[in-house]
């Protein structure tokens, strides 16, 4: 498969210059490399600019509710573990509205890949602070500047025991596509937080702002060391590392639940379920 095989004719509704274009290209490149046909891939999203992404990719799509991409993705993966499930979500969708699902799906550790378009601002609702907006950032709502501390996704994920936590940059599509491929081949919940400029509403964290700060982790970095990974994840100031910050092998939900030893649930014959063995448990015979 080639990235173009994943094109759809659907007109793209993002602003010109949006960081989402880079992420879209990276997703298509990674899907092409996965070797999976479009009918075996499911892209799940919530609501936000990021959540429009599945409409621009030729594969199955479930574009659900704001914040609820992860539970829908989890349900679909449990129902059919043979589907390749990738979630496209944003900093508001995943870390704000869907924060509880984010925490608990790290614990669940299903074999899914979660790409968070993290532009540190709300785009769809026109420029309010997101959970990852820096303190002091002035918006129409936070007119005196944001007073809450930003949520730090990779630190949270590593602390929660996520088995794969990476950071990408929408300005480096090739590197990002590589991270998505790694995330998809990782067995378990793979988080890829993608730094992304919002050209319309975030005048602080611009393409130039990110470009000055990001650097790629090289082969001297060991992503298997959790404590070192946590320290690396904390690096989020003048220098921002890109790459797989943490990766470890961990039992997946599918393995822990025994789903991996069964045919996918969706394949079961539901027309002829015999409940007689269960009825016996409730039966009492008059003696």
């Amino acid at each position, binding site marked *: 498969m080639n990235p173009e095989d994943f094109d759809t004719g659907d007109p793209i509704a993002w602003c010109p210059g949006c960081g989402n274009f880079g992420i879209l290209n990276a997703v298509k490149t990674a899907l092409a490399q996965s070797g999976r046909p479009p009918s075996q891939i499911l892209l799940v999203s919530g609501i936000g600019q990021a959540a429009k992404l599945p409409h621009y990719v030729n594969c199955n799509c479930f574009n659900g509710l704001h914040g609820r991409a992860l539970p829908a993705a989890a349900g679909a993966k449990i129902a059919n573990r043979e589907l390749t499930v990738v979630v496209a979500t944003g900093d508001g969708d995943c870390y704000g509205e869907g924060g509880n699902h984010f925490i608990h799906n790290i614990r669940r550790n299903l074999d899914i890949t979660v790409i968070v378009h993290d532009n540190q601002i709300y785009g769809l609702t026109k420029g309010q602070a997101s959970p990852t907006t820096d303190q002091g950032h002035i918006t129409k709502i936070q007119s005196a500047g944001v007073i809450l501390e930003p949520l730090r996704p990779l630190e949270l994920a590593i602390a929660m025991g996520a088995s794969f936590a990476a950071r990408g940059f929408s300005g480096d599509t090739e590197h990002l596509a590589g991270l998505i491929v790694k995330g998809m081949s990782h067995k378990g919940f793979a988080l890829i937080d993608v730094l992304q400029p919002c050209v319309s509403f975030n005048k602080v964290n611009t393409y130039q702002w990110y470009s000055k700060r990001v650097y790629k982790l090289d082969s001297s970095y060991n992503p298997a060391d959790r404590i070192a990974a946590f320290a690396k994840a904390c690096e989020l100031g003048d220098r921002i590392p890109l790459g797989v910050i943490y990766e470890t092998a961990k039992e997946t939900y599918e393995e822990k639940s025994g789903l991996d030893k069964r045919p996918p649930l969706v394949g079961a014959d539901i027309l002829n*379920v015999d409940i007689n063995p269960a*009825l016996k448990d409730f039966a009492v015979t008059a003696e």
Partner: protein
Amino acid sequence: MKNELTIRIAGEAGQGMQTIGAVLCRAFISAGLNVFANQDYMSRIRGGNNFFQLRVCSKPVHAPRRRADIIVALDKASVELHRPALAAGGLLVADAKKYGLAAGTAGFADVPLYALAAQAAGAELFMNSVACGFLTGATCTDFRHAESAIRRAFEGKPAEIISKNIAAAKAGYDFSLQQADCRSFAPGAAGGEALLLDGNGAMALAAIKSGCKFYSAYPMSPSTGLMETMSQYAEQFGIAVEQAEDEIAAVNMAIGASFAGARAMTATSGGGFALMTEGISLAAMTETPVVIADMQRPAPATGFPTRTEQADLDFALHAGHGEFARAVFTPGTPEQAFALTAKAFDTAERYQIPVFILSDQHLAESYRSVRLSDLNMPPVKRYALTGKIAPDYKRYALNDTGISPRALPGLADCVVYADSDEHTEEGHITEDAAVRAAMVRKRFHLKMAALARETEKPQAVGVENADIVLVGFGSTYDVMREAAESARTIKTGFIHLSQVWPFPAQEMEALLKNAKKAVTVENNAAGQLARLIRRETGIKLAGSILKFDGRPFDLEYLVEALETGRLQ
């Protein structure tokens, strides 16, 4: 001699009323009798005061009675708390020594529950089994029925636990034989095999039989029993049962699983149902089948966590933002819960909509002897596309029925787009006015019209020439039925709705237009069903018999209301 008996076992939470209650239910069924048992318990694990009440009869029984013929007090507090519930000529059993009551005083029968337990089984904690044995003897029931029921209840426990419980029960049984005055109950036996089933159990069995393969929920009384049963059979029937982080996740997971092709269900109570409403609207918009059960309990907010109410009727009819087709089933008995859960799965998948089952604590957790022949459902059918799909496939293709072919992603060789935004036939986001109007017609008008043709007909009994017609939905079925049968001074008929949406307006109009007097019977304060009937038929009923104290209707309450004409 009586052919019917009500037994109440009262005590603190943790004293094992539920365990021996279930043992007694099984023992009586094994002795060929019918049982109805309801539980009244507080939202606590230890202490407080709870009771388990069984009605035993040679004929089928369906509703609780207000007064008990035998009350066993397992603690001192229960003696005076439950004395007012003792029927005339009834027997109140208490342990005089243990509770510090003056032996020989009138008003209770002294049974040394605790001493017998210590003697026979080595510890006072077996006093509940002593009570169980005592009740077996006091009702002239052969001890072997109790023994086999105890063996079954403690199946898998160490042999010593089983033998001690049996020894304690035997001590209670032998003691009862010395109390000849207790032995006034001699019913004819009904015989045959029966299932001991509550509403939750019936729904679980039907869900399994209907091919439910995914069940996600957040524990909430009184829906948790359904989740436990699904979990108990998960491995055996290949069902994923997932405890979600909250009810929002529960419903969205079910929708995701259903989108992928697994039949999916979730259940909760009012508060959790409130959290699910956003997801309900998602199921409607994406046209994803899902079955959602609301086991009602008294609200608002946390309300009475362990008690019963029917106040979510309006809520279920309107839950979810926007306009879309839905079906709301309101079973009244475990048998109906079984049949209608099956119909809910079929309806959800056929129409690609959210379908609701409104149960309540009373139906969900009251046990009855149910005949296997009364558990029925039609053969399960599937309505989804897999395999080779035409290249021009559109998930939301417009047609005359409103129902588009539903391909399952991963199982069909096409790609499927589902969207919570307004969408084109292909499933992509649109802002087009004409497409919007066509999609609303599809999701709402066309589907509702088709659903309305299949609404369960109201069940009407003795309505013609009745002086008064009772009208109810859900769990009031049995109490209406028995009240209609036993009201002596006034000729009573009843109408029961086991589906309230789409509302069977024509049928109800035909049934009600000639009624001399009709009133609703509802476990709520607003008379929600009466309002619904008025809205849908224009008929204003004479009033309502309402109960909103968190307790179910008992037979006497309803009969009294009927005979005194007390309406709200």
